[in-house]
Protein backbone atom coordinates (compact mmCIF):
# COMPACT_ATOMS: atom_id res chain seq x y z
CA UNK A 1 0.00 0.00 0.00
CA UNK A 2 1.00 3.57 -0.28
CA UNK A 3 1.74 6.21 2.32
CA UNK A 4 -1.94 6.67 3.19
CA UNK A 5 -1.97 3.68 5.51
CA UNK A 6 0.90 5.16 7.48
CA UNK A 7 -0.85 8.53 7.67
CA UNK A 8 -4.06 6.85 8.85
CA UNK A 9 -2.25 4.81 11.48
CA UNK A 10 -0.32 7.74 12.87
CA UNK A 11 -3.38 9.99 12.97
CA UNK A 12 -5.68 7.34 14.47
CA UNK A 13 -8.20 8.14 11.75
CA UNK A 14 -11.22 5.83 12.16
CA UNK A 15 -14.94 5.85 11.48
CA UNK A 16 -17.06 7.66 14.14
CA UNK A 17 -13.96 9.70 15.09
CA UNK A 18 -15.09 12.63 13.05
CA UNK A 19 -12.45 11.73 10.49
CA UNK A 20 -13.50 11.43 6.82
CA UNK A 21 -12.44 8.44 4.72
CA UNK A 22 -9.25 9.36 2.89
CA UNK A 23 -10.20 7.72 -0.39
CA UNK A 24 -7.26 6.48 -2.46
CA UNK A 25 -6.87 8.03 -5.89
CA UNK A 26 -4.35 9.16 -8.45
CA UNK A 27 -2.13 10.56 -5.72
CA UNK A 28 -1.36 6.94 -4.72
CA UNK A 29 0.36 6.40 -8.07
CA UNK A 30 2.63 9.43 -7.81
CA UNK A 31 5.77 8.92 -5.81
CA UNK A 32 8.15 11.48 -4.42
CA UNK A 33 11.57 10.92 -6.02
CA UNK A 34 14.28 9.42 -3.82
CA UNK A 35 16.71 11.83 -5.44
CA UNK A 36 16.81 14.18 -8.39
CA UNK A 37 19.43 14.94 -11.01
CA UNK A 38 18.42 18.15 -12.71
CA UNK A 39 14.81 17.68 -13.82
CA UNK A 40 15.07 13.88 -13.59
CA UNK A 41 13.65 12.34 -10.42
CA UNK A 42 14.39 8.73 -9.46
CA UNK A 43 11.24 7.30 -7.85
CA UNK A 44 10.00 3.99 -6.45
CA UNK A 45 8.48 2.62 -9.71
CA UNK A 46 11.85 3.11 -11.44
CA UNK A 47 13.63 1.27 -8.65
CA UNK A 48 11.10 -1.58 -8.88
CA UNK A 49 11.52 -1.79 -12.67
CA UNK A 50 15.31 -2.07 -12.24
CA UNK A 51 14.76 -4.73 -9.57
CA UNK A 52 12.48 -6.64 -11.96
CA UNK A 53 15.20 -6.59 -14.62
CA UNK A 54 17.76 -7.84 -12.08
CA UNK A 55 15.45 -10.60 -10.85
CA UNK A 56 14.94 -11.90 -14.41
CA UNK A 57 18.66 -11.70 -15.28
CA UNK A 58 19.88 -13.24 -12.01
CA UNK A 59 17.28 -16.03 -12.08
CA UNK A 60 18.07 -17.19 -15.61
CA UNK A 61 21.79 -16.65 -15.08
CA UNK A 62 21.69 -18.83 -11.97
CA UNK A 63 19.61 -21.43 -13.79
CA UNK A 64 21.76 -21.76 -16.91
CA UNK A 65 25.29 -20.53 -16.23
CA UNK A 66 26.42 -24.15 -15.75
CA UNK A 67 23.68 -26.28 -17.26
CA UNK A 68 23.67 -29.97 -16.36
CA UNK A 69 22.38 -32.81 -18.49
CA UNK A 70 20.04 -33.81 -15.66
CA UNK A 71 18.60 -30.52 -14.38
CA UNK A 72 18.51 -29.88 -10.63
CA UNK A 73 17.48 -27.00 -8.39
CA UNK A 74 17.27 -23.60 -10.08
CA UNK A 75 17.99 -25.09 -13.50
CA UNK A 76 14.92 -27.26 -13.08
CA UNK A 77 12.78 -24.19 -12.33
CA UNK A 78 14.34 -22.28 -15.22
CA UNK A 79 13.58 -25.10 -17.65
CA UNK A 80 9.98 -25.35 -16.42
CA UNK A 81 9.61 -21.58 -16.88
CA UNK A 82 11.03 -21.63 -20.42
CA UNK A 83 9.03 -24.70 -21.46
CA UNK A 84 5.84 -23.10 -20.11
CA UNK A 85 6.36 -20.02 -22.29
CA UNK A 86 7.36 -22.17 -25.27
CA UNK A 87 4.41 -24.59 -25.06
CA UNK A 88 1.68 -22.22 -23.91
CA UNK A 89 2.62 -19.02 -25.73
CA UNK A 90 5.14 -19.47 -28.55
CA UNK A 91 4.33 -22.80 -30.18
CA UNK A 92 0.53 -22.30 -30.40
CA UNK A 93 1.09 -19.12 -32.44
CA UNK A 94 4.39 -19.61 -34.24
CA UNK A 95 5.00 -23.34 -34.32
CA UNK A 96 8.50 -24.88 -34.15
CA UNK A 97 9.93 -22.37 -36.61
CA UNK A 98 9.26 -19.60 -34.13
CA UNK A 99 11.67 -21.02 -31.52
CA UNK A 100 14.22 -18.32 -32.38
CA UNK A 101 11.86 -15.80 -30.73
CA UNK A 102 11.81 -17.78 -27.47
CA UNK A 103 14.48 -15.68 -25.65
CA UNK A 104 12.58 -12.49 -26.48
CA UNK A 105 9.20 -13.86 -25.37
CA UNK A 106 10.61 -15.44 -22.18
CA UNK A 107 12.30 -12.16 -21.21
CA UNK A 108 9.17 -10.15 -22.01
CA UNK A 109 6.86 -12.49 -20.11
CA UNK A 110 8.95 -12.63 -16.94
CA UNK A 111 9.82 -8.94 -17.00
CA UNK A 112 6.11 -8.03 -17.15
CA UNK A 113 5.17 -10.68 -14.60
CA UNK A 114 7.77 -9.56 -12.06
CA UNK A 115 6.76 -5.91 -12.52
CA UNK A 116 3.10 -6.88 -12.01
CA UNK A 117 3.71 -9.13 -9.04
CA UNK A 118 5.54 -6.34 -7.19
CA UNK A 119 2.00 -5.28 -6.25
CA UNK A 120 1.63 -8.29 -3.97
CA UNK A 121 5.06 -8.36 -2.31
CA UNK A 122 5.24 -6.60 1.07
CA UNK A 123 7.45 -3.47 1.13
CA UNK A 124 7.30 -3.11 -2.69
CA UNK A 125 3.48 -3.16 -2.91
CA UNK A 126 3.22 -1.34 -6.20
CA UNK A 127 2.70 -2.75 -9.71
CA UNK A 128 5.17 -0.93 -11.96
CA UNK A 129 2.89 -1.45 -14.98
CA UNK A 130 0.17 0.66 -13.34
CA UNK A 131 2.30 3.61 -14.51
CA UNK A 132 1.61 3.74 -18.24
CA UNK A 133 5.05 5.23 -18.94
CA UNK A 134 6.52 1.78 -18.26
CA UNK A 135 4.08 0.07 -20.62
CA UNK A 136 4.49 2.21 -23.77
CA UNK A 137 8.19 1.39 -24.31
CA UNK A 138 7.33 -2.33 -24.30
CA UNK A 139 4.48 -1.69 -26.76
CA UNK A 140 6.88 0.27 -29.00
CA UNK A 141 9.45 -2.53 -28.91
CA UNK A 142 6.80 -5.13 -29.79
CA UNK A 143 5.34 -2.94 -32.53
CA UNK A 144 8.71 -2.10 -34.02
CA UNK A 145 9.52 -5.82 -34.20
CA UNK A 146 6.06 -6.53 -35.65
CA UNK A 147 6.54 -3.95 -38.42
CA UNK A 148 10.16 -4.88 -39.08
CA UNK A 149 9.37 -8.59 -39.46
CA UNK A 150 6.33 -7.82 -41.60
CA UNK A 151 8.33 -5.67 -44.02
CA UNK A 152 11.24 -8.15 -43.99
CA UNK A 153 9.11 -11.21 -44.80
CA UNK A 154 6.41 -9.69 -47.02
CA UNK A 155 7.97 -6.50 -48.38
CA UNK A 156 6.57 -3.05 -47.58
CA UNK A 157 3.89 -3.10 -50.29
CA UNK A 158 2.96 -6.74 -49.71
CA UNK A 159 2.66 -6.11 -46.00
CA UNK A 160 0.27 -3.20 -46.51
CA UNK A 161 -1.69 -5.12 -49.16
CA UNK A 162 -2.02 -8.19 -46.90
CA UNK A 163 -3.74 -6.13 -44.21
CA UNK A 164 -6.97 -6.49 -46.20
CA UNK A 165 -7.92 -10.05 -47.18
CA UNK A 166 -8.02 -10.90 -50.90
CA UNK A 167 -11.32 -11.18 -52.72
CA UNK A 168 -12.59 -7.82 -51.52
CA UNK A 169 -13.99 -5.66 -54.38
CA UNK A 170 -11.88 -2.52 -54.97
CA UNK A 171 -14.56 0.03 -53.89
CA UNK A 172 -14.70 -1.79 -50.53
CA UNK A 173 -10.89 -1.58 -50.37
CA UNK A 174 -11.14 2.22 -50.43
CA UNK A 175 -13.75 2.16 -47.66
CA UNK A 176 -11.63 -0.19 -45.54
CA UNK A 177 -8.28 1.57 -45.91
CA UNK A 178 -8.91 4.27 -43.23
CA UNK A 179 -10.31 1.65 -40.85
CA UNK A 180 -7.36 -0.70 -41.37
CA UNK A 181 -4.72 2.00 -41.08
CA UNK A 182 -6.22 3.39 -37.89
CA UNK A 183 -6.71 -0.09 -36.44
CA UNK A 184 -3.16 -1.15 -37.26
CA UNK A 185 -1.21 1.97 -36.30
CA UNK A 186 -3.33 3.39 -33.49
CA UNK A 187 -5.89 1.11 -31.86
CA UNK A 188 -4.06 -2.22 -31.89
CA UNK A 189 -0.98 -0.88 -30.05
CA UNK A 190 -3.24 1.29 -27.90
CA UNK A 191 -5.34 -1.67 -26.72
CA UNK A 192 -2.18 -3.77 -26.20
CA UNK A 193 -0.77 -1.20 -23.78
CA UNK A 194 -3.92 0.09 -22.14
CA UNK A 195 -5.19 -3.38 -21.27
CA UNK A 196 -2.08 -4.17 -19.23
CA UNK A 197 -1.96 -0.72 -17.64
CA UNK A 198 -5.73 -0.59 -16.92
CA UNK A 199 -5.88 -3.99 -15.26
CA UNK A 200 -2.92 -3.31 -13.00
CA UNK A 201 -4.07 0.22 -12.21
CA UNK A 202 -7.59 -0.92 -11.28
CA UNK A 203 -6.31 -3.88 -9.28
CA UNK A 204 -3.96 -1.75 -7.22
CA UNK A 205 -6.67 0.84 -6.61
CA UNK A 206 -9.13 -1.84 -5.42
CA UNK A 207 -6.55 -3.39 -3.13
CA UNK A 208 -5.69 0.03 -1.69
CA UNK A 209 -9.34 0.94 -1.15
CA UNK A 210 -10.22 -2.22 0.75
CA UNK A 211 -7.03 -2.25 2.82
CA UNK A 212 -7.38 1.38 3.88
CA UNK A 213 -11.11 0.89 4.48
CA UNK A 214 -10.38 -2.11 6.74
CA UNK A 215 -8.20 0.11 8.91
CA UNK A 216 -10.51 3.11 8.73
CA UNK A 217 -13.63 1.12 9.71
CA UNK A 218 -11.89 -0.53 12.65
CA UNK A 219 -13.52 0.57 15.92
CA UNK A 220 -15.14 -0.95 19.01
CA UNK A 221 -18.62 -0.66 17.50
CA UNK A 222 -20.52 -1.97 14.52
CA UNK A 223 -17.58 -0.61 12.53
CA UNK A 224 -15.70 -3.79 13.48
CA UNK A 225 -18.16 -5.77 11.37
CA UNK A 226 -17.65 -3.40 8.42
CA UNK A 227 -13.89 -3.68 8.89
CA UNK A 228 -14.09 -7.49 8.83
CA UNK A 229 -16.15 -7.35 5.61
CA UNK A 230 -13.68 -4.96 4.01
CA UNK A 231 -10.73 -7.09 5.11
CA UNK A 232 -12.35 -10.20 3.61
CA UNK A 233 -12.74 -8.30 0.34
CA UNK A 234 -9.11 -7.16 0.53
CA UNK A 235 -8.05 -10.81 0.84
CA UNK A 236 -10.33 -11.74 -2.06
CA UNK A 237 -8.89 -8.97 -4.28
CA UNK A 238 -5.37 -10.01 -3.26
CA UNK A 239 -6.05 -13.58 -4.39
CA UNK A 240 -7.66 -12.29 -7.57
CA UNK A 241 -4.61 -10.15 -8.26
CA UNK A 242 -2.28 -13.14 -7.95
CA UNK A 243 -4.16 -14.49 -10.98
CA UNK A 244 -4.44 -11.14 -12.80
CA UNK A 245 -0.70 -10.42 -12.57
CA UNK A 246 0.05 -13.73 -14.30
CA UNK A 247 -2.82 -13.43 -16.76
CA UNK A 248 -1.86 -9.96 -17.95
CA UNK A 249 1.74 -11.01 -18.57
CA UNK A 250 0.39 -14.06 -20.43
CA UNK A 251 -2.01 -12.00 -22.59
CA UNK A 252 0.61 -9.40 -23.51
CA UNK A 253 3.14 -12.07 -24.49
CA UNK A 254 0.58 -14.22 -26.32
CA UNK A 255 -0.57 -11.24 -28.38
CA UNK A 256 3.07 -10.39 -29.12
CA UNK A 257 3.55 -13.96 -30.40
CA UNK A 258 0.42 -13.77 -32.58
CA UNK A 259 1.57 -10.41 -33.99
CA UNK A 260 4.96 -11.87 -34.84
CA UNK A 261 3.20 -14.86 -36.44
CA UNK A 262 1.04 -12.59 -38.59
CA UNK A 263 4.13 -10.69 -39.74
CA UNK A 264 6.14 -13.79 -40.55
CA UNK A 265 3.25 -15.66 -42.16
CA UNK A 266 0.35 -13.57 -43.47
CA UNK A 267 -2.95 -15.14 -42.49
CA UNK A 268 -4.65 -14.04 -45.67
Amino acid at each position, binding site marked *: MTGDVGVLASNGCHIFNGCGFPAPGLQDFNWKPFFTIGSFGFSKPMLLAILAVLVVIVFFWAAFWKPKMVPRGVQNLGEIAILAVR*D*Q*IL*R*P*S*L*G*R*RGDSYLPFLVSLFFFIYIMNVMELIPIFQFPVTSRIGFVWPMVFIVYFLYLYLGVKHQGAWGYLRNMI*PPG*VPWPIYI*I*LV*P*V*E*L*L*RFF*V*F*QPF*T*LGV*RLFGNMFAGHLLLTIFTIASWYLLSLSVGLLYAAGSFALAIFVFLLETLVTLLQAF*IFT*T*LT*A*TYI*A*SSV*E*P*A*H
Partner: protein
Amino acid sequence: MNDHGNEAVTRARKQAAAQGRAQGLETGWTVFSYLLAGMAAYGGIGWLIGRAVHVPLLFPVGMLVGLGISIGYIIHRFGRQQAVERPRKEITGDR
Protein backbone atom coordinates in the same frame (compact mmCIF):
# COMPACT_ATOMS: atom_id res chain seq x y z
CA MET B 1 -4.42 -47.50 -27.33
CA ASN B 2 -1.05 -47.88 -25.56
CA ASP B 3 0.51 -45.37 -23.10
CA HIS B 4 2.53 -43.64 -25.83
CA GLY B 5 -0.60 -43.27 -27.93
CA ASN B 6 -2.57 -41.79 -25.02
CA GLU B 7 0.28 -39.42 -24.25
CA ALA B 8 0.41 -38.24 -27.85
CA VAL B 9 -3.35 -37.67 -27.94
CA THR B 10 -3.24 -35.72 -24.65
CA ARG B 11 -0.32 -33.62 -25.93
CA ALA B 12 -2.15 -32.93 -29.20
CA ARG B 13 -5.29 -31.91 -27.29
CA LYS B 14 -3.30 -29.57 -25.05
CA GLN B 15 -1.62 -28.02 -28.08
CA ALA B 16 -4.97 -27.56 -29.81
CA ALA B 17 -6.40 -25.92 -26.67
CA ALA B 18 -3.41 -23.54 -26.40
CA GLN B 19 -3.69 -22.75 -30.10
CA GLY B 20 -7.41 -22.03 -29.73
CA ARG B 21 -6.68 -19.77 -26.76
CA ALA B 22 -4.09 -17.77 -28.68
CA GLN B 23 -6.34 -17.42 -31.73
CA GLY B 24 -9.30 -16.45 -29.55
CA LEU B 25 -7.27 -13.75 -27.83
CA GLU B 26 -6.01 -12.36 -31.12
CA THR B 27 -9.47 -12.40 -32.71
CA GLY B 28 -11.16 -10.82 -29.69
CA TRP B 29 -8.79 -7.88 -29.48
CA THR B 30 -8.65 -7.41 -33.25
CA VAL B 31 -12.45 -7.22 -33.35
CA PHE B 32 -12.41 -4.67 -30.54
CA SER B 33 -9.77 -2.61 -32.39
CA TYR B 34 -11.86 -2.71 -35.59
CA LEU B 35 -14.94 -1.40 -33.79
CA LEU B 36 -12.96 1.52 -32.34
CA ALA B 37 -11.06 2.17 -35.59
CA GLY B 38 -14.24 2.22 -37.72
CA MET B 39 -15.97 4.70 -35.46
CA ALA B 40 -12.85 6.88 -35.13
CA ALA B 41 -12.03 6.86 -38.88
CA TYR B 42 -15.48 7.68 -40.19
CA GLY B 43 -16.38 9.82 -37.17
CA GLY B 44 -13.25 11.85 -37.96
CA ILE B 45 -14.11 12.10 -41.66
CA GLY B 46 -17.70 13.08 -40.71
CA TRP B 47 -16.41 15.68 -38.29
CA LEU B 48 -14.10 17.21 -40.92
CA ILE B 49 -16.83 17.35 -43.57
CA GLY B 50 -19.36 18.60 -40.98
CA ARG B 51 -16.97 21.37 -40.01
CA ALA B 52 -16.50 22.39 -43.63
CA VAL B 53 -20.22 22.41 -44.50
CA HIS B 54 -21.41 23.52 -41.02
CA VAL B 55 -23.46 20.38 -40.36
CA PRO B 56 -22.32 19.09 -36.91
CA LEU B 57 -24.65 16.09 -37.25
CA LEU B 58 -22.22 14.52 -39.72
CA PHE B 59 -19.90 13.60 -36.81
CA PRO B 60 -22.30 11.15 -35.08
CA VAL B 61 -23.57 9.99 -38.47
CA GLY B 62 -19.98 9.24 -39.50
CA MET B 63 -19.41 7.30 -36.29
CA LEU B 64 -22.50 5.18 -36.93
CA VAL B 65 -21.47 4.59 -40.54
CA GLY B 66 -17.98 3.60 -39.32
CA LEU B 67 -19.50 1.22 -36.78
CA GLY B 68 -21.62 -0.34 -39.53
CA ILE B 69 -18.60 -0.74 -41.82
CA SER B 70 -16.60 -2.30 -38.98
CA ILE B 71 -19.34 -4.77 -38.10
CA GLY B 72 -19.78 -5.73 -41.76
CA TYR B 73 -16.04 -6.21 -42.17
CA ILE B 74 -15.74 -8.22 -38.95
CA ILE B 75 -18.49 -10.57 -40.16
CA HIS B 76 -16.80 -10.84 -43.58
CA ARG B 77 -13.34 -11.46 -42.16
CA PHE B 78 -13.95 -13.55 -39.05
CA GLY B 79 -17.12 -15.28 -40.20
CA ARG B 80 -14.89 -17.41 -42.43
CA GLN B 81 -12.05 -17.79 -39.92
CA GLN B 82 -11.53 -21.52 -40.56
CA ALA B 83 -10.96 -21.03 -44.27
CA VAL B 84 -8.57 -18.16 -43.59
CA GLU B 85 -6.53 -19.89 -40.89
CA ARG B 86 -5.86 -23.11 -42.80
CA PRO B 87 -3.05 -21.81 -45.06
CA ARG B 88 -1.10 -20.46 -42.06
CA LYS B 89 -1.05 -23.93 -40.44
CA GLU B 90 0.25 -25.45 -43.67
CA ILE B 91 3.08 -22.92 -43.89
CA THR B 92 4.02 -23.31 -40.22
CA GLY B 93 4.18 -27.09 -40.39
CA ASP B 94 4.53 -29.11 -37.23
CA ARG B 95 3.35 -27.44 -34.02
